[in-house]
C-alpha cells in the first residue's frame, strides 16, 4: 500500500514570505497529524484532524500557521508570514482511527529553510 505522501520535499524562502505544504495520507486513514521537527529535537505535534474536523490545535501558532483538511483526505499546512525560527522539517502522519494505541505512519517530511 502507498505510504503518506508529502510535497514539496524541500523549500527555501525568505522571512515574511508565505509557504504551503501538502500531505496525502494513507487511503482510508481517518486521522491526520502535522508535526514540526526542529533540528536536534523530537517532533512536536502542531495539529490533528479526525476526518475533516480539528481534534487538537493547541500547539499551532495560529497567528501565522493554518491548516485544513477539506473532504477529510488531503491536507495543507500554511505559514504566513514565515519567521526564521520556522526553519524545520514538517512531518505529516496518518492513522487508521483516532485511538491512543493506533500506529501513526509518517511521510518523508518537508524541509523548510527560512532565510
Amino acid at each position, binding site marked *: 500500500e502507498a505510504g503518506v505522501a508529502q510535497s514539496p520535499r524541500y523549500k527555501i524562502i525568505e522571512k515574511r514570505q508565505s509557504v504551503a505544504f501538502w500531505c496525502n495520507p494513507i487511503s482510508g486513514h481517518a486521522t491526520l497529524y502535522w508535526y514540526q521537527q526542529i533540528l536536534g*529535537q*523530537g*517532533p512536536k505535534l502542531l495539529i490533528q484532524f479526525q476526518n475533516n474536523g480539528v*481534534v487538537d490545535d493547541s500547539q499551532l501558532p495560529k497567528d501565522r500557521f493554518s491548516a485544513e483538511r477539506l473532504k477529510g483526505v488531503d491536507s495543507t499546512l500554511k505559514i504566513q508570514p514565515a519567521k526564521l525560527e520556522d526553519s524545520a522539517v514538517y*512531518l505529516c502522519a496518518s492513522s487508521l482511527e483516532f485511538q*491512543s494505541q493506533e500506529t501513526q505512519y509518517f*511521510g*518523508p517530511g518537508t524541509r523548510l529553510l527560512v532565510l
Partner: protein
Amino acid sequence: AQSVTQPDIHITVSEGASLELRCNYSYGATPYLFWYVQSPGQGLQLLLKYFSGDTLVQGIKGFEAEFKRSQSSFNLRKPSVHWSDAAEYFCAHNYGQNFVFGPGTRLSVLP
C-alpha cells in the same frame, strides 16, 4: 504536563555489540508507548509499541523493549547491532490523544 526523556543524546557502539537506549515518561498512568527510528532524510518508522499485556515487546529489525512501571521506563534493546541501525531513535507516548516525542538518541555504529 506529560513528558518523555531520553537521557542519552548520542551513543556509539561497535557493530555486533549489544545496545540499550533509555526512555522515561512522566505520566503516572500507563501510557501507550512507542519507539520510532528515523534514518537521515527519511520519515519516522515504527519499531514497536506497548499498550497492555506482556511487558516485553518484540519489534521489527530484531529490536525489543521492556516496560517497567516501577521505573516509568520503556528501554529499547538489541542484542547485536548492525551498521544499518545507525539512525536517530525516538521514544514517544500517547495518552488521551496527546502524542509526545522524546528528544531522540542518535546512534552511531563503528565497523
